[in-house]
C-alpha cells in the first residue's frame, strides 16, 4: 500500500482530499437529481459530434487548469530557489506532467473539440465520416488522460521530462511505475488521436456539401486537413517509440538501454520524428482559426486564398523533414546539421506568407474588435517574435548555445501560447455562440484578455534574458551568484497574471451561462461560412437540407444574393445510433493500461481481452443507424423558426 499511494507530501494530501470531495459531490448530485440515466443516454453513449466536442472542451479546460497549477508551482519554486517549496523529485515530476498534459491532454483535445464543433457544420455535413469511431477517440483520450493523471496520487508521477529520454526513463534509472503511467496514458490517448486524424481526413475529403470544391473550402477546414495529414503520418511513430520503451521496461529488451548494445540516441531520433510535427499539428488549426476570424471581423474576403492553402500544405509536409533541430547538439555530423538547419528555417517562409496575408486581409477592411479578433491580433506580434526566435534556434551552431536553456523555454511558450492557446481561445469565443446559443460576456473577456497578454510578456520575456545568462531548463534551484533571481521573480509574477486571467475566464463562462447575450439568429457575427447558416445550437442532424456551396464563403454569398436556408419540404434523415461500446472499450483499455503499469499481468491481459470482445461485438452489429422521419424534421425546423 505504501508503494501504491503517494505519501508524505502535504500538497498531495490536499489534492487527495480535493479529489475525494469532488468525486463524492459529483456522485451525490447525479444521484440526487436522478441524472445517471441522462448522463448515460445523452453523453456517454452519444455519437453526436457537437456533444463530443463539448466533452472535449470540458476536459481540455480542466487539463489547462491542472497544467497551469503545475506551472504556477514551478514558478513559485524558481522565484525562491533557496526554499524547499518543491524538492528536486517533486519539481521533476511537475515539469514532466506540465509539459505532457499541456501538449497531449490540453492542446490536443482542445483542437479536437474545435474540429468536432466546426468541421461538419462548416462543410455542410450531418456528422463526421465515422461517428462511432469519433466517440471511441474521445473516450480513449479521456481514459488515457485519466490514467496519466491518477499517477499523481497512485504510484507516483513520471519524472523524466515530457519526452522521457532513455536511459533516464529506463528501468535502470526510473524503476518506479511513473514512466509506465506515462507510456500507457499517452499510448491510449494516442490511438484515439490517430483515429480522429483518419476520421476528419475522410470527412473533409468525402463529405463536403455538393459544389464545395477543395479550392472553395473554408480555410479552417483546410488547416484541419493539413493537421490530419500530419497526424496520420506521425502518430504511428509515437506509438512505436513508446511501445519500444515499454518492451525495454517490461520484457527486459535492450533497444534504448545503456547495456546490451541498446542505443538511447535512437529514441531521441524517433520521438522527435513525432514530437516536431506534433507542434505543427497543434498550430495549423490555429492558423485556420485566425484565417476565419480575420476575414469575418475585417468584413473582407481572405487575402491570397491560394497561397494560404499552399503554405499550409507545405508546412504540413515540410514539418516531417526538420526533426533533427531538437538534437543538433548530438553532433550527428556537419552535413546532417546543416541539412536540417536549412529545412527548419525554410518553414519560416510559408509561415511568413500567412502572416502577410492576414495583415492584408485587414488592410482595406473594417476591423471589429470582438473577443475572437482581440486574441487574433494579440497572436500576430507574439507568434512573430516566437517564430523569429525559432529561426534563431534553427541556426545550428548558435543552437549549441541556446539548447536546453531558458531561451528555448521562452521560444516555445511564445509559439505554444501565442500561437496555439491564443488561437484556440479565439476559436472558442468565435464558435461558442454556435454551439451553446449565447455569447460569452464581453467585459469579463476583455479583462481576461489583458491579464493573459500582459502576464505573458512579463512571464516569458525575462526568460530570454535568463537564456542569455546561461540558465538551463529543468533545474529546481540555482545559486545567487549568477544573477538569475530577479528575472525569475518577474517571470513568476507574469505567471500569476496569466493564472488570474484564466480564473476570470472561468468566471466569464459561469456568468455568461446565466446572463450571456442570447443568439437567436444563428449568425451572431455576420459570418461567411456554412456553419452560420443554421440555428444555434444546431439540431442533431445539423442541416435539414444539405446546402449547395459552390462559392468560397458560401454563406456570405447566399446572404448577398438573398437566398434563405430554409426549405418547404423535408426528407427523412439517416443518423447513426448511439453506442455504449466506445465507452466500454476505453474502460477496458484503461484496465489494461493500469494492469500493465503495475505489472499485474492478468489484469492487463483481461483488459486487452475486453478490448477484443468489444471490437468483435461491434463487428457483429448490423443495425447501427436509424431514420429521423420527415415529419419529425419539419416539426423541429418549425420549432426553431418560431424561436428565431
Amino acid at each position, binding site marked *: 500500500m505504501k508503494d501504491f499511494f503517494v505519501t508524505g507530501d502535504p500538497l498531495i494530501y490536499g489534492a487527495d482530499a480535493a479529489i475525494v470531495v469532488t468525486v463524492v459531490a459529483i456522485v451525490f448530485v447525479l444521484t440526487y437529481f436522478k441524472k445517471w440515466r441522462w448522463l448515460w443516454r445523452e453523453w456517454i453513449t452519444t455519437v453526436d459530434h457537437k456533444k463530443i466536442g463539448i466533452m472535449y472542451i470540458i476536459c481540455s479546460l480542466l487539463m489547462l487548469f491542472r497544467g497551469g497549477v503545475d506551472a504556477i508551482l514551478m514558478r513559485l519554486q524558481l522565484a525562491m530557489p533557496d526554499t524547499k517549496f518543491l524538492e528536486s523529485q517533486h519539481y521533476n515530476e511537475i515539469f514532466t506532467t506540465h509539459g505532457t498534459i499541456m501538449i497531449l491532454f490540453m492542446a490536443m483535445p482542445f483542437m479536437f473539440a474545435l474540429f468536432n464543433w466546426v468541421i461538419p457544420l462548416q462543410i455542410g455535413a450531418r456528422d463526421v465520416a*465515422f461517428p462511432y469511431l469519433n466517440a471511441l477517440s474521445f473516450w480513449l483520450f479521456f481514459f488515457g488522460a485519466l490514467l496519466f493523471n491518477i499517477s499523481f496520487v497512485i504510484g507516483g508521477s513520471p519524472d523524466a521530462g515530457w519526452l522521457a529520454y532513455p536511459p533516464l526513463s529506463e528501468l535502470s534509472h526510473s524503476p518506479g511505475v511513473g514512466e509506465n503511467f506515462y507510456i500507457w496514458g499517452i499510448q491510449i490517448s494516442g490511438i484515439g488521436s490517430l483515429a480522429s486524424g*483518419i476520421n476528419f481526413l475522410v470527412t473533409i475529403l468525402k*463529405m463536403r456539401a455538393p459544389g464545395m470544391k477543395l479550392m472553395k473550402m473554408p480555410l479552417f477546414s483546410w488547416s484541419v486537413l493539413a493537421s490530419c495529414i500530419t497526424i496520420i503520418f506521425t502518430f*504511428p511513430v509515437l506509438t*512505436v517509440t513508446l511501445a519500444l520503451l515499454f518492451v525495454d521496461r517490461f520484457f527486459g529488451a535492450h*533497444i534504448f538501454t545503456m547495456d546490451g*548494445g541498446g542505443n538511447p540516441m535512437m529514441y531521441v531520433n524517433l520521438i522527435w520524428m513525432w514530437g516536431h510535427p506534433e507542434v505543427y499539428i497543434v498550430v495549423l488549426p490555429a492558423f485556420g482559426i485566425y484565417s476565419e476570424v480575420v476575414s469575418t471581423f475585417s468584413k473582407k474576403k481572405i487575402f491570397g486564398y491560394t497561397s494560404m492553402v499552399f503554405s499550409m500544405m507545405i508546412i504540413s509536409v515540410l514539418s516531417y523533414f526538420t526533426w533533427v533541430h531538437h538534437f543538433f547538439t548530438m553532433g550527428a555530423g556537419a552535413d546532417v546539421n546543416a541539412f536540417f538547419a536549412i529545412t527548419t528555417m525554410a518553414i519560416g517562409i510559408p509561415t511568413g506568407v500567412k502572416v502577410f496575408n492576414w495583415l492584408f486581409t485587414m488592410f482595406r477592411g473594417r476591423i471589429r474588435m470582438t473577443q475572437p479578433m482581440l486574441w487574433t491580433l494579440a497572436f500576430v506580434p507574439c507568434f512573430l517574435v516566437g517564430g523569429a526566435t525559432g529561426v534563431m534556434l534553427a541556426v545550428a551552431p548558435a543552437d549549441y548555445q541556446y539548447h536546453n536553456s531558458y531561451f528555448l523555454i521562452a521560444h516555445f511558450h511564445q509559439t505554444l501560447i501565442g500561437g496555439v492557446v491564443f488561437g484556440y481561445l479565439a476559436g472558442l469565443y468565435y464558435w461558442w455562440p454556435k454551439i451553446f446559443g449565447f455569447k460569452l460576456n464581453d467585459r469579463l473577456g476583455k479583462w481576461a484578455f489583458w491579464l493573459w497578454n500582459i502576464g505573458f510578456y512579463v512571464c516569458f520575456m525575462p526568460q530570454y534574458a535568463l537564456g542569455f545568462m546561461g540558465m538551463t531548463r529543468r533545474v529546481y534551484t540555482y545559486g545567487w551568484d549568477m544573477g538569475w533571481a530577479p528575472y525569475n521573480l518577474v517571470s513568476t509574477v507574469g505567471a500569476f497574471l496569466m493564472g488570474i486571467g484564466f480564473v476570470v475566464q472561468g468566471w466569464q463562462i459561469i456568468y455568461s451561462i446565466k446572463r450571456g447575450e442570447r443568439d437567436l439568429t444563428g449568425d451572431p457575427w455576420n459570418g461567411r461560412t456554412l456553419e452560420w447558416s443554421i440555428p444555434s445550437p444546431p439540431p442533431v442532424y445539423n442541416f435539414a437540407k444539405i446546402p449547395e456551396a459552390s462559392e468560397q464563403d458560401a454563406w456570405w454569398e447566399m446572404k448577398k444574393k438573398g437566398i434563405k436556408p430554409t426549405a418547404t419540404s423535408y426528407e427523412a434523415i439517416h443518423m447513426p445510433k448511439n453506442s455504449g461500446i466506445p465507452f466500454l472499450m476505453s474502460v477496458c483499455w484503461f484496465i489494461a493500461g493500469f494492469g500493465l503499469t503495475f505489472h499485474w499481468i492478468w489484469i492487463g491481459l483481461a483488459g486487452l481481452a475486453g478490448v477484443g470482445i468489444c471490437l468483435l461485438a461491434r*463487428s457483429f452489429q448490423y443495425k447501427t443507424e436509424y431514420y429521423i422521419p420527415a415529419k419529425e424534421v419539419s416539426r423541429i425546423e418549425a420549432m426553431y423558426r418560431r424561436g428565431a
Partner: protein
Amino acid sequence: MQQSITPQHEHEHHESMKVFGFWIFLMTDCILFACLFATFAVLRTHTDSPFTGNELFEIPGFTAETFILLTSSFTSGLATLAMNKGKVKPLIGWLAVTVLLGAAFIGLEINEFMKMVSEGATISTNAFLSSFYTLVSTHGLHVSVGIVWMIAIMIQLKKHGIQSVTKRKVQVMSLYWHFLDVVWIFLFTVVYLMGVM
C-alpha cells in the same frame, strides 16, 4: 465524389468511405513498420557471435513461411473474386484456406522463436535480438489479429450473405492481408536474407 444524397446512394457512399478510411489506416501501419525497420537497421549490428542472423536464421524455415504467406495472399484474392461473382460458398471456402495458411505461418514462426530461445537468443540477450523480436512479432501479431477477424467475417457471411456491408468487410480484409504480405516481403529481405548474407 460529390454524390447526390439519396438514401441508397448514401449507403454505398458510406461503405466506400470506410474502405478509404481503412486505406489511410494502412498508411499509418506502413509508418509503424517503417519505424520498426529503422530501429532494426540501426541495431542489427549490435550483437556478437553466436547471436548473429547468420548463425540463428534457418533458410528452409523462413523460406517456407514466405511461400505460405504469399500463397495466402493469393487465396484471399481468390476469395474476393468469388465474392464479386456473388458466390458465398467459394468465398467462405477461400477465406477458410487463407485462415489455415495464416495459422500455419504463425505456427512456423512460433516454432522458430522457440528454437531461438532454446539456443539462448531471447529478447533480452542484446539489442539486435530485441529489435528482431519486436519487428517480427509485430508482424506476427498483425497476422494473428487478421485470422480472428477473418473468422468473424466468415460467420457474418454465413448469417448475412453477400451484401454491401459484408462485401466491404471482405474487401477491407483482403487489403489488410495483402498489406501484411508486402510487409513480410521486406522482413524476408531485410531481416532474413540480409541476415544470412
